[in-house]
């Protein structure tokens, strides 16, 4: 049984149809990457899994349970957590407060050890804990956003373009963090990226979304060498050596 299974998901924004029957599965312990052009519906897919907006048709199963209509808080409690596009940290609150917000639905008993774990992962956050989160650099903000999401101990972590607007060195660090999380904590990852090269390299499996439909799927390596993917998503300049 896959950990997450989307069956024929349709999502609308008013009259605009953003997803047109998407099937995606994520197995326990995998890193699955979703790539696609702007407006393909990648963010919508992640948001739909979280229940905002709701799918109008189709079914979302998480660990054998139907979460298509479950309340948002239930979905998070089940262990699904998203790092939304554009970080969306609470900029006027301190770093520590941001992390605590992430633990809202978590077990209070874990709070302290989780906090130490985050600080162990990104020591910069420990140094900046009383600083307003809005004054962090872009990379630090992304780290904070990831840590905030991790505070609820998700089993499925979904990241929406974590490398957006970051310098190559930081991007490398972020991808390394994602791989470490997957390897060491066994966190399952669903990764949405524009930076297709990196994202496909770390992925076990990947999907290509086009106009709200799954266009291609395969292992990360397969898609990396797929001529269509190369032409559309890799040659455009995202290609890093």
């Amino acid at each position: 049984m896959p950990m997450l299974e989307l069956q024929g998901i349709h999502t609308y924004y008013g009259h605009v149809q953003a997803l047109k029957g998407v099937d995606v599965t994520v197995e326990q312990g995998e890193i699955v990457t979703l790539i696609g052009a702007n407006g393909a519906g990648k963010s919508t897919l992640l948001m739909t899994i979280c229940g905002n907006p709701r799918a109008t048709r189709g079914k979302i199963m998480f660990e054998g349970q139907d979460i298509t209509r479950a309340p948002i808080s239930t979905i998070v409690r089940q262990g699904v957590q998203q790092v939304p596009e554009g970080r969306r940290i609470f900029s006027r609150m301190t770093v520590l407060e941001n992390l605590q917000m992430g633990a809202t639905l978590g077990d209070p008993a874990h709070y302290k050890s989780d906090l130490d774990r985050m600080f162990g992962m990104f020591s910069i956050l420990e140094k900046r804990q009383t600083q307003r989160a809005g004054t962090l650099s872009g990379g630090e903000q992304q780290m904070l956003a990831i840590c905030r999401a991790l505070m609820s101990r998700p089993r499925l972590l979904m990241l929406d373009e974590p490398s957006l607007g970051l310098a190559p060195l930081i991007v490398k660090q972020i991808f390394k963090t994602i791989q470490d999380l997957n390897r060491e904590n066994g966190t399952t990852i669903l990764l949405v990226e524009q930076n297709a090269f990196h994202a496909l390299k770390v992925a076990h499996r990947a999907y290509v979304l086009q106009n709200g439909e799954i266009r291609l799927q395969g292992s990360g390596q397969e898609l990396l060498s797929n001529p269509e993917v190369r032409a559309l998503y890799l040659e455009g300049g995202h290609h890093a050596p």
Partner: protein
Amino acid sequence: MTQGAMGMAARPAIDYAALLKDAALAAFVVFFLAFPLIGLQTYDQGGALAVRGRWDLLAYAVIIGFVGRFLFQLAMLFKPVKSTKEPSDASLARQRQIGMIIRYALLGIALTMPFLPFSDRSWLDRGINVLIYVMLGWGLNIVVGLAGLLDLGYVAFYAVGAYSYALLSLNFGLNFWVCLPLAGLFAALFGVLLGAPTLRLRGDYLAIVTLGFGEIIRVVLLNWGSLSGGPNGIASIPRMDFFGLFPFGNREGAFHTVFGIEYERTHQIIFTYFVILALALMTNWMVNRLRKLPLGRAWEALREDEIACKSLGMNPTNTKLSAFAIGAMLGGFAGSFFAAKQGFINPESFTFMESATILAIVVLGGMGSQMGVVFAAIFLVLLPEVTRDFEQSRMLLFGAAMILIMVWRPKGVISHREPTLRLNPVKGA
């Protein structure tokens, strides 16, 4: 001192020519505006309307415009350059210390105010008014400052509280101390009633709806004569007694006989003063407490980013609703206090102007700042008193003062936000 000198040295030389040009432009605008408004006066000449010029006044206006703009620009040049860096820990600690001192000093003044030699009835009244606005400001601060919901109809909850007390005490003979929680409860209920359908709205839309709600309450009170007494309002509302034990007044069994002191009319006013002081302090304590609880933090997080809150599994509507209800409840407390202090209420006390004043207190004070609200309330309540002599230009002064404050401190008098969590002790240290 040295800091100022250094700051000046770092600044480029002042370009007087540009300043004069700018001032001349301002003077021209003033001339353009003032020519028809001030410069021309119509008068009655043998039954016909004639026009004559008031060139001297026009000249004054233009000169004021010129000099004012020049000085203003000059002042802006000398305004200390704000460093965008986060303040250092040391300076933060010092600021916090100063804040503490001011806080305790103000508390001391507030506690001893009724016993100071100059405090007569009118000063006590002023004190009570300031405290009512401080309490309202703190209540609205939950909604606007913490939860970030622009509420333009806060006065509605104040009205609900006031009428609740008036009606409950007159119709059921209930005592102020019983009515106070009930009034708060009713106001909170109205908060939920208004909030439930509207809190999905954002920013400006919510503002319009709350504005409408405030007006609806007032218009209902104005027209539902059988309940609210219509425009005449409700008179002879029972004043508050001593915690439901004994009344005030010059008779046997009243406050002064129990305590064996000489009867004085100010006793009741002093008591009233302390009641509102206690209510205000309770509000402050509650807001400070709430901010450190998950609920208060959720309000602030919601103000910052709703989508992020949703992705963390929060329910934004319920969170907003709780902020709205608690803010409304505090407004209701203040309202029922107002009715008991005044002994008379009518819809005139609950106009939009009132909402605007409370909002101005919150914004001027610095959103989310508790001390700022105190200063803004003192300022906004006392300014009309000071300017009583210029009755005609009062609103003008009021507006000018607000603009000046906003130019001086765009984020309100006190814009620093106190973190709700202290440092997590660094491991091994």
